[in-house]
């Protein structure tokens, strides 16, 4: 009798242990895969940071609806970097050491990726950068990948196609003015422009920068007009893009071509408010609702994104950054699934070796983690009437002029002809 009690007790203990272990396994299998990031939710870049985060959340929701990654749900752990690079090391240390995230992606923009690079290299992380311009140009860190389609030569990504188009016009323009803000991106873009101008052989008649906090752009535009350039290349952030464009209309600056690297003309509120003032501007873009850009899944993405963005007071159309933020997560998700684990090196090796089908088209990474072949679009604003936002939902208002394989319209030249 005593013996049988001992037997029962032993069996109970064994069963309990087995159940407990199974329970642990079950819990571990259901443990979420945590992806950590800092994002500009306040501060100067938050107008892009928040939509980027929303796109990532939509990806997470879609993945979780399909059972997650490796059979585990996905969780995004994020903090507001306040558009302040100084917060980035602290945020990622917390994500990695306290929150124990399995994977990281960067916040939005060159300045916020820069302080993350040494951390990623030190900890041998796989890092996908969200719209960083030439962040890895000096480091050559093999496990860094960058999602904007600037290509292997980011510094000249906007200037090269812009001036290439200018050089093809008849009569060929001779003189150029370049102007931009004293900030990281515009400075890089202007350096690229100087390189391209030298290669093509244009004559520079104006080359100046301005502080980002400038209130009145009319003296700058008037000084540019005084040099009578054929082409004006502008590398600006949203407030200065608006300021420069309004001043150009007020001063009557009408070169043969104008635009290039103006950030902000892709944002819904600015497109809507500026309306016909945008006509004729030839500017870089990454996605527009033109037929050649309708990649698989992009329409479904916007069906989810646009109502949520409108409700949350952010970029309603979301053509600029959100699809690429979503695509970054698609790349990471596919790499995790295909490598069947969370090994940073294996994930990086997979991303480096393979081509990905995403909602922004096929992506293959090349030198320094940039797109192997750049795909910066040059679009010209045409036939915009009034300030109705609906006109921007379909094709025709921002036809793709460059590259040739995605072309959906013809350049109206000179600039003044597009204003009529």
């Amino acid at each position: 009798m005593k013996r049988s009690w001992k037997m029962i007790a032993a069996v109970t203990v064994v069963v309990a242990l087995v159940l407990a272990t199974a329970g642990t396994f079950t819990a571990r299998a259901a443990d979420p895969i945590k992806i950590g990031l800092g994002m500009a939710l306040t501060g100067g870049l938050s107008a892009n940071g928040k939509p980027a985060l929303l796109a990532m959340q939509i990806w997470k929701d879609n993945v979780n609806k399909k059972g997650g990654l490796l059979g585990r749900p996905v969780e995004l752990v994020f903090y507001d970097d306040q558009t302040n690079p100084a917060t980035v090391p602290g945020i990622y240390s917390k994500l990695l050491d306290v929150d124990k995230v399995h994977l990281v992606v960067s916040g939005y923009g060159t300045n916020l990726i820069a302080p993350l690079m040494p951390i990623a290299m030190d900890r041998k992380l796989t890092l996908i950068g969200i719209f960083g311009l030439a962040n890895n140009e000096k480091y050559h860190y093999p496990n860094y990948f960058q999602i904007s389609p600037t290509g292997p030569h980011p510094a000249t990504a906007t200037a090269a196609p812009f001036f290439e188009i200018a050089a093809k016009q008849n009569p060929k323009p001779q003189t150029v003015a370049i102007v931009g803000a004293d900030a990281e991106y515009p400075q890089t873009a202007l350096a690229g422009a100087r390189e391209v101008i030298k290669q093509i052989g244009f004559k520079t008649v104006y080359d100046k920068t301005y502080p980002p906090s400038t209130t009145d752009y009319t003296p700058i535009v008037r000084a540019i007009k005084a040099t009578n350039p054929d082409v004006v290349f502008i590398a600006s952030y949203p407030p200065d893009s608006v300021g420069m464009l309004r001043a150009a209309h007020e001063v009557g600056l009408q070169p043969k071509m104008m635009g290039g690297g103006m950030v902000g003309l892709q944002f819904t509120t600015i497109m809507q408010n500026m309306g016909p003032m945008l006509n004729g501007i030839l500017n870089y873009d990454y996605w527009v609702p033109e037929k050649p850009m309708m990649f698989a899944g992009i329409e479904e993405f916007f069906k989810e994104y646009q109502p949520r963005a409108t409700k949350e007071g952010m970029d309603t159309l979301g053509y600029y950054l959100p699809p690429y933020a979503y695509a970054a997560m698609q790349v990471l998700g596919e790499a995790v699934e295909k490598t069947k684990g969370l090994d940073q090196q294996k994930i990086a090796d997979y991303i480096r070796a393979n081509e990905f089908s995403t909602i922004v088209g096929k992506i293959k990474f090349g030198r320094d983690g940039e797109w192997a072949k750049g795909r910066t679009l040059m679009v010209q604003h045409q036939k915009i009437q009034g300030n109705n936002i609906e006109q921007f939902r379909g094709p025709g208002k921002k036809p793709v002029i460059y590259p040739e394989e995605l072309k959906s319209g013809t350049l109206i030249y000179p600039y003044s002809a597009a204003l009529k």
Partner: protein
Amino acid sequence: MFSWDLLANAVVAGLLLGGFYAAVSLGIGLVFGLLDIANIAQPAFLILGAYAAYVMNESFGADPILIGILFTPVFYLVGAVVYRVYYGSFERRGDEALRGLVFFFGILFILEVSLSLKFGVDYRLVQAPYIGKSFEVAGVGIAFRYLIPCVVGVAMTGLLYLFLGRTFYGRAIMAVSQDQAALRLMGADPIHIKTVAFGVGIAAASLAGALLITIAPVVPSTDRDYIGRMFAITVLGGMGSIGGTLVAGVILGVTESLMSTFFGPSWAPAVSFGILLLVLAVRPAGLFGR
């Protein structure tokens, strides 16, 4: 590249910008210059005024500057309440120096975050028929979106000058800035007077916000661009000098405009603040400070 035509245009553009800078700085001139309250949150009220103009413009198509004028009583009340809280919590206890500063920092961040939560972080602009339009007088181009804010800025300066010099409340504000105890002995309540002054300062900031959004797009964090400029103009003009604020605004505006036209816009802030340092070295109380 010099031409008389460019020079004339640069000077006029600078004058117009100066009028706007004066409008932006008048409120802080009153609150900081006369009442000695380091209201760091002043630029947040500037942005709040800009958003009020944006909302009414977006919803009803109302003119942003008209909205700015109509909303001044509302912001006056907001300012009065803020001062009462500040007084009750800090000034009355003699804690206004450091803790008061923290209080206004807190208001700055609360307003900024509240605007972000309510309106998101997208750039907000207004529409008005005169934006993007200009006219020419003797070869000098004048843009309406700078002319109107300048006219309003000069009018605000004139009205505030008359208010401070000709009305009971105005004189009492000047008196409270000099000797609070003496004013109490004269039978006036200095706290009430300061409440009025603070309210007027916030109302001025809100109207300047409507002018700002007429000129440029605004996001909740735009306030940070104006903190330094507001205080610099107030100090350059002379603490408590309303006319000095206009003169200082014009000096900064014309300097920025001339630098942008002839030497490169990047030099504009350095030269403007160089002038500020130079003036302070010669006249520590500012141009018109006592």
